[in-house]
């Protein structure tokens, strides 16, 4: 009965708040002026949050708004979104927090947020604080300013925030990307040189961001790590660089993760997944591309569930290491480090 009464209220509230958020996003500069700029990630979070709110997945919406706030902590619109998501879940402490931030960041919105803020304070038992806000909210809601605001919201684009930024934003962002790909100069050890102090402080080393995950410390976070013997592969006419064969391994020891069947079918990738380069020139599959039968391997399984009947290794070929003493030592050392002792 209560739910029946509350449902239309909540639906109406959602449409209202989504429209408010759309308006905020429509005038993007107000949302980003204080922060570094609308990153693709930020837009993704906001898009996801809106989608989640529309679908009634409030918890997800709350989490996405929190992520967006993490990236743009001075954008009041995201706090409004957070407060709406939390309101639907009756998390009034969060509503109060979010609206307090809105008022702090944009004091001009104080009247607009008063009612909801007062309501949240009321639910938190802070009666004395709640009364003036509730009264202010009631006073504001019938004011010409509120009517003007509602008219503006009603005429703003109401829905569909793209999950990827509009081309104008992308092109603007692209124009700000550094085109100068000149590497950081080598240290000259001479503070008086053109490179100045920076050249001494920074040693030149190029970091390939695509390969940032390709470390043992990253691999150790896989769901499963096993030692397994290579036993062969399933022959097929269709094996090539980007269509790897199904290699059969037999698990001899599980170093980490849930118990698995001893027979381990592995997608035997020939490339490191983050590598952007294509197949090497003249590459052709043959038996010599596969390991020796019976050879032991350390296999990092990103997830302990197969995909198309095969387990994926961490970062493609990076997730297979010959199980020699040196590698085993390294892996055991990393496992020790991550054992939370």
């Amino acid at each position, binding site marked *: 009965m209560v739910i029946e009464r509350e449902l*239309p*209220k909540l*639906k*109406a*509230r959602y*449409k*209202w708040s989504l*429209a408010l958020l759309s308006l905020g*996003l*429509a*005038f*993007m*500069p107000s949302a*980003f*002026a204080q922060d*570094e*700029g*609308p990153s693709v990630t930020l837009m993704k979070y906001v898009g996801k949050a809106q989608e989640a709110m529309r679908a009634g997945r409030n918890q997800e919406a709350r989490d996405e708004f929190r992520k967006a706030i993490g990236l743009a902590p001075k954008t009041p619109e995201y706090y409004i979104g957070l407060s709406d998501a939390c309101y639907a879940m009756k998390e009034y402490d969060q509503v109060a927090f979010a609206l307090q931030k809105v008022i702090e960041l944009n004091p001009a919105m104080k009247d607009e947020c008063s*009612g*909801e803020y*007062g*309501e949240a304070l*009321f639910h938190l038992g802070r*009666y004395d604080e*709640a*009364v003036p806000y*509730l*009264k202010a*909210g*009631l006073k504001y*809601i019938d004011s010409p300013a509120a009517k003007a605001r*509602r*008219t503006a*919201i*009603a*005429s*703003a*684009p*109401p*829905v*569909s925030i793209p999950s990827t930024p*509009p081309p*104008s*934003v992308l092109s*603007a962002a692209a124009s*700000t990307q550094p085109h100068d790909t000149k590497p950081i100069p080598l240290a000259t050890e001479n503070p008086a040189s053109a490179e100045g102090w920076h050249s001494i402080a920074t040693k030149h080393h190029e970091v390939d961001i695509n390969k940032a995950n390709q470390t043992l410390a990253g691999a150790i976070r896989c769901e499963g790590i096993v030692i397994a013997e290579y036993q062969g592969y399933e022959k097929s006419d269709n094996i090539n660089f980007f269509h790897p064969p199904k290699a059969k391994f037999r698990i001899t020891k599980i170093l980490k993760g849930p118990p698995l069947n001893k027979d381990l079918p592995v997608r035997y990738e020939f490339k490191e997944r983050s590598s952007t380069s294509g197949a090497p020139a003249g590459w052709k599959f043959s038996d010599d591309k596969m390991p020796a039968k019976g050879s032991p391997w350390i296999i990092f399984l990103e997830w302990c569930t197969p995909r198309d009947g095969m387990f994926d290794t961490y970062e493609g070929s990076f997730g297979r290491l010959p199980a020699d003493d040196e590698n085993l030592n390294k892996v055991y050392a990393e496992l020790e480090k991550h054992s939370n002792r």
Partner: protein
Amino acid sequence: MIFPARPLSLGLALALSVSTLLVGNASYAQNSKKVEWHRCLISIYKSKNQVPQACEEYAALVNLDPKDAQVRFEYGAYLHKMGRVKDAIVQYRKAADMNPSNPDYQGAVGDALVSLKDYSSAVAYYQKAGPKYAGKLSTTAAYVQQLRQINQYNAEIKKRAAEDE
């Protein structure tokens, strides 16, 4: 880094087509917000025993939707509890008139009338309330009957006394 404002022309036609709907929903949402906030204030004033302020909020709530029988019933119940029985009856009666099939509304008028010792009127409302108030109906009806008999007896005595004189 400042980005140009996103043009609103995109989707404007769609916006215009749905704006009517949105405004309709907005006014509903706006009203439901007001109701919620008035209710918050009522709870606060009640907890602090600030009767005039609570009544003021109830009155505002009634004004928001004069056809809401439940609000009138709650307002009446609060007035009744605070001893303002006549005012309570006004609200109860309006609630009962709006929703005659609700036994609680009818029964509440009956209870308030009993507080004012208007038993025969109360019986009428208890009758409308139905089985839920059957106990109160029979008690009140019996009491009304007794009162009638007492009155008849008193009238008889007065008549005889007058004849003796």
